[in-house]
């Protein structure tokens, strides 16, 4: 009878949310959107954004006869006829986009050039143009310095060496495995952020649900048939199930999309014959293909099923911990505006978890990583960041046990606040008041 009632509450909480259009949209559009967000900057950056022409006044003559490359075209103004003011005016009335002014100064000193070169843009100068010019000028000034020391820049260029280390880890079997630190960092950070997002999103839904029941004044009707604890737990479990469902759909969708992408696009490029062909045909660009292969191999170095499993554990644990606290807050206030003052202390640990993560990806076995992956308020996030790098099982077990212990405690506390709070209307609540509620028998 009582069990059936909590089932009814769970069912209602689950169904009313899953049936919403917003759930469907989030679930399907979410992964696509996240994918796009990750790909978009790269795509945008690689798009050529139309040719740019730049005027150059090269007083010392260090750049001439460089004509520019790629989308940038350099045109020279005779330095004798143009001073800076005149050139600026000229730029204003020409079709060119920018003006570089290289003054000579006293005594032909390359370091003086370095300090005094100015770039004027007709409008905002794009970052890519700034970078291009900086790199070009650096090289040219460098050449000048080398020449002054009597070194031929050609020889320096030939002796320059580019090195990318091939890094391997020895795993427990002593077998070497290609390390994929970058992939692990990205995966860890993404997993940490995802769990933060899920915990935060679904915990706030718990709070909003509690406030909704309070403001619509239905809560007293319900608790005349269900114990307040059952109502609260039913809500937490129901909403959490929505989160789990959404996560699982995301996993399946992402896996599906990945399979489709690698079968259609990548398969073509992984054909060995084509790689050899491509290497012959394209020369240096063949590097891209082997980079793709390397990417594929690196992905295999990350244990995705384990990540998904650990994610599920820590999502459930972290969500119950935060969900119960959010439920207590929802019960204590009359509307969402009032919730701000209580939300802050609850959200801060979550944010600390995210902040610490940026350091944890750098050193996933360090003391910072260890302690923050044990503290239950940050462990879901920090542990997810660590997991792609491999975490000893005893640490996982300890962290999960601490999390379970803590969420049992917060749930117990929340239940005591909840049962009093849901029946309180129109009262300004402070911490002292909440403390009093907790001690009611």
């Amino acid at each position, binding site marked *: 009878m009582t069990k059936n009632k909590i089932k*009814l509450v769970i069912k209602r909480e689950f169904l009313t949310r899953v049936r919403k259009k917003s759930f469907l949209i989030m679930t399907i559009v979410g992964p696509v959107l996240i994918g796009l967000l990750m790909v978009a900057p790269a795509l945008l950056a690689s798009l050529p954004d139309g040719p740019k022409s730049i005027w150059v006044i090269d007083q010392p003559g260090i750049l001439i006869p460089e004509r520019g490359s790629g989308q940038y075209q350099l045109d020279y103004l005779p330095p004798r006829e143009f001073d800076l003011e005149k050139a600026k005016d000229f730029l204003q009335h020409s079709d060119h986009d920018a003006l570089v002014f290289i003054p000579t100064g006293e005594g032909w000193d390359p370091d003086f050039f370095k300090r005094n070169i100015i770039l004027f843009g007709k409008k905002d100068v794009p970052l890519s143009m700034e970078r291009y010019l900086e790199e070009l000028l650096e090289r040219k000034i460098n050449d000048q310095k080398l020449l002054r020391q009597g070194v031929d820049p050609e020889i320096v260029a030939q002796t320059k060496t580019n090195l990318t280390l091939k890094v391997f880890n020895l795993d427990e079997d002593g077998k070497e495995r290609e390390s994929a630190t970058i992939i692990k960092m990205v995966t860890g950070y993404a997993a940490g952020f995802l769990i933060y997002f899920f915990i935060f999103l679904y915990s706030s839904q718990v709070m909003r649900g509690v406030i909704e029941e309070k403001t619509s*004044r239905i809560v*007293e009707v319900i608790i*005349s*048939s269900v114990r307040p604890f059952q109502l609260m737990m039913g809500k937490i479990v129901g909403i959490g199930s929505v989160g789990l469902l959404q996560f699982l759909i995301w996993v399946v969708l992402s896996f599906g999309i990945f399979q489709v992408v690698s079968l259609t696009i990548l398969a073509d490029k992984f054909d060995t014959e084509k790689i050899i062909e491509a290497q012959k045909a394209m020369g240096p660009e063949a590097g891209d293909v082997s980079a793709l292969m390397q990417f594929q191999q690196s992905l295999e170095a990350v244990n995705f099923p384990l990540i998904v499993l650990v994610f599920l554990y820590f999502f459930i644990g972290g969500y119950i911990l935060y969900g119960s606290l959010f439920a207590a807050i929802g019960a204590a206030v009359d509307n969402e505006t009032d919730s701000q003052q209580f939300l802050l202390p609850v959200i801060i640990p979550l944010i600390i978890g995210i902040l610490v993560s940026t350091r944890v990806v750098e050193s996933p076995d360090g003391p910072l990583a260890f302690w923050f992956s044990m503290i239950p308020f940050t462990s879901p996030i920090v542990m997810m960041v660590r997991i792609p790098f491999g975490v000893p099982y005893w640490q996982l077990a300890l962290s999960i046990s601490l999390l379970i212990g803590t969420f049992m405690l917060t749930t117990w506390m929340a239940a005591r606040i909840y049962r009093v709070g849901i029946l309180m209307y129109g009262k300004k609540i402070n911490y002292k008041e909440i403390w009093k509620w907790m001690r009611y028998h």
Partner: protein
Amino acid sequence: MDIISAEHIVKTYSGHVALNDLTLNVPERSIYGLLGPNGAGKTSFIRIINQITAPDSGKLLFHGKPIQASDVARIGYLPEERGLYKKMRVGEQALYLAQLKGLSSSEAKKKLAYWFEKFDIHGWWDKRIEELSKGMAQKVQFITTVLHEPELLIFDEPFTGFDPINTNLIKKEIRELRDKGATVIFSTHRMESVEEICDHIALINKSNKILEGPLKDIRMKYRTNTYSITFEPREADLLKALPHNYHLVDHHRDNEGWRTARITLEDQSSPNEILEYFIQRTTVHHFEEVIPSVNDIFIREVQKN
């Protein structure tokens, strides 16, 4: 047989005493008025019956036995702070609430069909609550309260916010439910609103019960042998020359121009004597005994203590 017996119930909230040694009995098949000003402790008591809170001490018996968790299925409760999920559809919501009270889905549907028919609202099943007017939502709330055919119905401030049409509809339904065997507890601070419908009352003031019993008996007990007489307005002098055992309480001219006086008989003489006195001297238009309203009784009791 009493459906509810409260025995020495004490309830305090962080130092504030909500109920102080409350003992009362609600007879089966009665319409019981729990009356008193705001903050007297009525809602605290009702929450104890609904097992939303537990008393600090004392006992609450349901049909003579300590009340149990499973008894909630036999109680229907319409709280003062009442509402519905705004985004949910009427039918779904009614089904949900009925199932929480222990009805099976098919039972609940059958019963809902009956009530929707009765209240002439069959078209509402798929409407969202937020699309309903306040009066419409009140009908739905009433249905969800009585749907599981509880033996005990509790209404806390039932008529606040109800329009007169709904008020009459609900009063009629409540009487019908009582006739079919249900017991009804009304809790309100507007005593006049339930006077005509209650047969038993309890007056509560500042966490203490000050009076309890059948309404008729209480009123009889509080009779003061006062009568109201309405007569020709120009005969006001009659009031100055009243016999010595008549005590004039007050008098006034009403809108139609009649003069009405309230007169108390100080000894046990018959009301006929007053009537005779006036009939011999003027035209009497109206004559009745002044029976104290519950409100009057309440005020008198509070002042006495």
